[in-house]
């Protein structure tokens, strides 16, 4: 094919695709009418385009249910048996779940870094501005064993001497614990809650934002995530972290990590643990000291435990 043919082909393709100006279109139309060869070439190209455009659209598999990840060995086997090239690519496919996990780990690392990044750097980035301090939010939990959980939480409140920080209310199908106090104090409560977290059918954290009636909703939240969010000194950082965790949890739902962890016998990725203060020294302390920060009102956290699955 010579250069002239190339130019005519480009012109005809642009004509087919509606990428010509009105004037150019008219000229090409005239050319087609006058020249049978060009008209035939146009038909050929149109057929070619149509054949590709008519290819059926496949439905994307639900994210996370990819055979290679989902562990449906027989389905994968069938696919591989029917396609020799898949067998060749198997090592690559083996690597991809790991790559997906690495991607998740990268996000987790970014989140962790945002937590442990040097404070002064963050502070320098907003000179002269006082970021909103404090945390305000609601933690909604459901359990099939409300009475036992209620008893456990009440004991935790008593044992950690948090009675001054927590107001409780009992309703028919739910218990409400309104915490108002320091970060370390709420950490004690969350550390105890973490030990019975598996008893909760669902856990949702709603973080208040400066905008009226807007919240960051974090589903499938873990006690460790709540602790990390609450620990943030600035509301802005807490909100950002809640958003990051929301993405992470969503990804855990969508991506193969969940299946892989389940297959490995783990319940949930738990890279962060809540450090609970422990008594050190000679143990002669007569009275357990009040939790540090118990008298401050850095955190407003309403914990609602409702009866349910």
């Amino acid at each position, binding site marked *: *094919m010579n250069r002239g043919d*190339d130019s005519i*082909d*480009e012109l005809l*393709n*642009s004509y087919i*695709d509606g*990428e010509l100006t009105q004037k150019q279109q008219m000229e090409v139309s005239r050319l087609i009418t006058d020249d049978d060869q060009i008209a035939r070439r146009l*038909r*050929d*190209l149109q*057929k*070619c*385009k*149509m*054949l*590709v*455009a*008519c*290819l*059926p*659209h*496949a439905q*994307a*598999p639900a*994210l996370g249910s*990819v*055979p*290679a990840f989902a562990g449906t060995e027989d389905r994968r086997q069938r*696919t591989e048996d029917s*396609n*020799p*090239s*898949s067998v*060749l*690519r198997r090592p*690559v*496919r083996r690597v*991809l779940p790991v790559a*997906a996990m690495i*991607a998740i780990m990268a*996000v987790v690392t970014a989140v962790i870094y945002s937590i442990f990044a040097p404070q002064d750097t963050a502070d320098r980035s907003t000179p002269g501005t006082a970021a909103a301090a404090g945390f305000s939010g*609601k933690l909604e939990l459901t359990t099939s064993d409300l009475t036992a959980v209620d008893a456990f939480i009440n004991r935790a409140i008593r044992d950690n001497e948090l009675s001054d920080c927590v107001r409780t209310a009992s309703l028919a199908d739910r218990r409400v614990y309104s915490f108002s106090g320091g970060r370390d104090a709420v950490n004690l409560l969350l550390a105890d809650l973490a030990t019975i977290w598996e008893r909760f059918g669902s856990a949702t954290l709603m973080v208040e*934002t400066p*905008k009226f*009636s*807007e*919240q960051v*909703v974090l*589903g499938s939240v873990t006690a460790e995530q709540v602790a990390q969010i609450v620990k943030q000194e600035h509301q802005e950082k807490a*909100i950002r972290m*809640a958003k990051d965790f*929301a*993405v992470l949890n*969503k*990804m855990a739902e*969508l*991506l*193969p990590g969940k299946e892989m962890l389940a297959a490995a016998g783990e319940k949930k990725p738990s890279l962060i643990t809540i450090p609970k203060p422990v008594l050190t020294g000679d143990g002669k302390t007569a009275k357990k000291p009040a939790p540090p920060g118990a008298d401050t009102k850095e955190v407003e956290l*309403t914990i609602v435990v409702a009866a349910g699955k």
Partner: protein
Amino acid sequence: MQPEPANIKGFPQSRVPIDDAALLEKWRWGDSAAMEELILKYQNRIFNVILKICANIDDAAELTQETFVKIIQGIDKFEGKSSFYTWAFRIAVNLTLNYCQRNARIGFQSLDADDYENHPSTGSGQACPFDGLRAGSERGRRVLKELLSDNKSPDPAVVAQNKELCDIVVKSLMKLDNAQKTVIILRDIEGMNYAQIAKVLDIELGTVRSRLSRGRSRLREIMEAIAG
């Protein structure tokens, strides 16, 4: 005061299609449903483009997942200079082409190429490189031959329902080089205009025109050779 549950996610659910920029803004404000909506909006389209480029359903599914991981990871860096649509497809196409190149480099070849190389007549200098395709799809070849020689325009519905024919078209596409194939897929399957294709592939508009033109001509030649 705690808001009503309906307002918990911050934004009311709307049945009116919301543009990508608005969804992104909502997501940045903490509405995780907005990202879900974006994923739902594009997952099939991205999957189909990837599938047509790499021609393997498992690879396509994995690459689609990887695309969305990259989108979520890189969303903070997305400044909105281009549209989310072209940005997302750019990620998808780059991932897929890199994956294809990697496979090619380490010696993983397509089924068709294997057929060709293993064919007893290969090496004689006269063998048709599409013999492997001919063997298994006689009916498809017959339909294709009629289609290509007929002066009338074929009925798209009939074409779409003919599995053998579709298989031949897919395999013919796979014979194109990646650059031409990608442009054709973005144009004829995804329905992008030339400017969008240029943005996705980061090439000049003129390059899009020439690749598309040469690609379609080559595709036509390949299909004619298969039809016999």
